[in-house]
Each structure stands twice: as structure tokens, then as C-alpha cells.
């Protein structure tokens, strides 16, 4: 479980996050949604320590990340997996080397053990026999799957996904969403997904935080979202023609 409390962040005196609090549950896919520029990515980067929050706390299972020194933060980071928007695969490495990288850096496993783990992770994301390919030989969806395999290689307790569906076709998006949902339940991780994709919200939104203008505007799950009367969330959800039609049919 990750708890954030009153997170504030400004850049050049422009307030991006104005005090966001939320609880991200373990074993659930927790979604942060909102329009572009609402502060989703800044929030996720504050939670990961890529940005230092101006105020507030981030608690990883009661351990206050914001009050930790760099070596304590490093310990937490070994429990974190991250799927970046563009995959962020190391382009000088093969698929196998990418997934093996955290294992090589932080474990004393033998080469056989590491290859075994790589193959397990690749099998989990349905990419067997891609070990020797480089990132340039992979499609966008395959890159995301390799990035997901790398993110789960260390059996993380926390999984962060930054817009996992961006740049993917709807069918591949659903595959990625379902994979994230499956690994979350399988490994009992606290998964946090930053998205503005309504299909993802409806498919895998166990616990949803809606941010507008740097503030928490709404929270709930994928069942609540279509029945809410919050005008901001309605405006966000029904900005899609598809959902307008669903609502009309209802």
C-alpha cells in the first residue's frame, strides 16, 4: 500500500500539485486519471522521488519516502518496478540484457538463474524467444511488454506505469492493460497507473484518483465512474463520443 498525504509541487512559482492525498491499495490496479497537464506525471514522479515534493509525504507501507536519505531510498527503489511511457528500454542492450539488468546490478544470481528469470518474465508477457532482439527490432506493443517484463524482474512490491497505452492500437492497449492487471493480482503488487485512456479506466480501474488542476477532484472505481454526478469527472468521461453513446443507450 502506498499513501500520499498533501503532496504539493511547484515549478517556477506555478503550482502544479496543490495538496493531493490518496491511498493506493495493494493487489489492486490504482489509476491516476485526468486531462493532459493536470499533474498526473508530476505526482507519479514525486512518488518515485524523481521530483522532490515541496510539501507532503509519500508512505510506502508506512515507510516515509520523503524523509529518507539516499541509501534508504535506494532500498525502497529495489522494491519498485516502473513501466515508462516510451518503454525506456536501454537501446544498447538486447531484450535479455534489458530484463537482466536489475538482476545483474542488485543480485548475486548466477547466469543460469538470471536467464531462467528472464525467460520466466518473457513468458509472462507472451514474448518467448525474443531474447536476442534489440529494442529497435520490436514494435511499440512489444517494447511495452519487454519494459513490463523488466519492471517485474525483481518481483517488485510496487509497480508504476506511466501512460502504458500511449501510442498503441486499441487491441494492443487491452493486451497491455490485462497483462498489468494479471501481474498485479499474481504478485499482489501495489500498481499505480497514470492514464487518460477511458478504455483502461473501464477495464482495470479498481481504485481511481481523478486529478483536476493539481487537486483531487474525485475518487472511486470503474463501477462508480459512470454513475457519478461530479461535473468534472462527467466532463472528462463523456468527452469521448463512445462513452456519450453508452450513456445515451443507458
Amino acid at each position: 500500500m502506498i499513501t500520499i498525504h498533501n503532496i504539493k509541487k511547484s515549478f517556477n512559482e506555478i503550482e502544479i500539485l496543490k495538496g493531493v492525498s490518496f491511498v493506493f491499495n495493494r493487489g489492486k490496479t490504482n489509476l491516476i486519471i485526468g486531462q493532459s497537464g493536470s499533474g498526473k506525471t508530476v505526482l507519479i514522479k514525486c512518488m518515485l522521488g524523481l521530483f522532490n515534493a515541496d510539501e507532503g509525504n509519500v508512505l510506502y507501507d508506512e515507510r516515509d519516502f520523503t524523509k529518507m536519505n539516499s541509501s534508504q531510498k535506494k532500498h525502497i527503489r529495489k522494491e519498485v518496478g516502473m513501466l515508462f511511457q516510451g518503454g525506456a528500454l536501454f537501446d544498447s542492450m538486447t531484450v535479455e540484457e534489458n530484463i537482466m539488468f536489475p538482476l545483474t546490478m542488485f543480485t548475486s544470481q548466477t547466469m543460469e538463474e538470471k536467464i531462467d528469470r528472464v525467460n520466466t518474465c518473457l513468458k509472462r508477457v507472451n514474448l518467448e524467444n525474443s531474447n536476442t532482439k534489440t529494442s529497435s527490432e520490436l514494435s511499440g506493443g512489444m517494447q511495452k511488454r519487454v519494459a513490463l517484463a523488466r519492471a517485474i524482474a525483481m518481483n517488485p512490491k510496487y509497480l508504476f506505469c506511466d501512460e502504458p497505452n500511449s501510442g498503441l492500437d486499441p487491441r494492443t492497449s487491452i493486451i497491455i492493460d490485462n497483462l498489468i492487471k494479471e501481474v498485479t493480482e499474481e504478485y499482489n503488487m501495489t500498481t499505480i497507473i497514470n492514464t487518460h485512456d477511458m478504455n483502461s479506466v473501464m477495464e482495470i480501474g479498481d481504485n481511481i484518483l481523478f486529478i483536476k488542476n493539481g487537486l483531487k477532484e474525485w475518487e472511486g472505481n470503474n463501477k462508480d465512474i459512470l454513475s457519478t454526478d461530479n461535473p468534472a469527472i462527467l466532463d472528462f468521461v463523456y468527452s469521448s463520443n463512445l462513452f456519450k453513446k453508452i450513456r445515451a443507450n443507458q
Partner: protein
Amino acid sequence: MLRKVFTRPENFSVFRKLVIHDIYDFGINSVGIVSFMSLFVGAVVTVQTAVYIDSPLLPKYLIGLVARDSIILEFAPTMIAIILAGKIGSNIASNIGTMKTTEQIDALRVMGVNPINYLMLPKLVAMVFFNPFLIAISMILGVIGGWGAGVSSGLCSSAEFMEGVTMYFSAFNVTYAFIKTILFAFVIATVSCFQGFYTKVGAIEVGRASTRAVVYCSVFIIILNYICTQLLLA
């Protein structure tokens, strides 16, 4: 930033592999261009020296002596460093800049890897270790190029050239050249990495960072060259 570079590497076997990779990438892969430039510049220096001291009062061995000192004191350490700043500096800055743009550096940080140490220290060690070898090759080939040009064009005999090369030889000149070489290698690695790490997002910015790396490296090398010369030779 430098404080973060000189921390203990996360994993020494990975660090060793990266150093070997960078020695190959920056050092071995530069031997060709360094050899080619050194042979021809050595030849040009010799021909120009011969033309300017074309007087019956001046002994022919001066051609070899002047060519040797020009190559050892200035051409090999400084000019080759500027060429390497263009070749290696732009490579390092664009590589790290692209890694930053594509969130690969964030990925390292999220995993708990210190990206500055992981990316910069192996490059710095490889450059400082291998640059003196490149400069030694440049010195030797520069003199050979000069000898070839001098003898083949009939400006001096082989014996006269070699007499000049061995005459009044000061070992300190070579030491001075290697001190400069190590400092220039440090400048190329650090300035280029710095430019890469502080690239703003976007392809244009990566190009700009690469250009800035070459320009700043060249400027620092020239200034440092003057300071070293004042401190060590003046």
C-alpha cells in the same frame, strides 16, 4: 555532479565491463583517425619547417628537431585532443542526451542506480586510461610521417632527420605532453557527460547538446593548454 561521479560503483563487474567497452569504443576505434591525422600532419610540419629554414647557414638536422618538438609539445596532445573532443565528445553528449530524452536515465534512477556514476565514471576512466596511448601513437606516427615526407621529397637525408629527432631530447617534454593529455581526457569526458545530462527534452536539444559539448571541450582544452604551458614550461 563530480561528487556523484566519484562514488563507489554499484557493481564492480558491470563497471569493469563498461570500462572495457568504452576503451574499445573511444580508444581502439579512434586509433585509425589519430594515426591518419598524425602521419599527415607530421609530414606537413616537416615540409613547412624545411621551407622556412632553407638557409645554408642552418643545419638540416633542425628539420627533425623542430618537427619532433612541434609534434610532441603541441600537435599530439592538443590538436589530437581537439579532434577527439569532436569525435568522442559529441558521441558522449548525444548518447546521454538521447538516454535522457527517452527516459532511460529516469529508468536507471527508479531502479536505484546512480546514473551519473553509472554512465560517467566508466567513460572518464576509459578516457584517462587510453588517451595517453593514443597520444603516444600520435607522437610516434607524427615523427615517422615527418621523416617520410622529409626524406621522400629530398628536403633532408634520413640521417640528418634522425640526428635532429634525437638531438637535445628532453624527457620532460614527453611528461609535459602526457600531463596535458590526461587533463584533456578528463575535460572531454566530464564536459561532454555534463552536456548530455543537462540536455532539455527533444531531438533538437540533443543536437545542441552535442554541439555545445564539442565547443566547450575545445575552449577548455585551449585555455587549459595555455595554463599548463605557463605552469610547466615557462
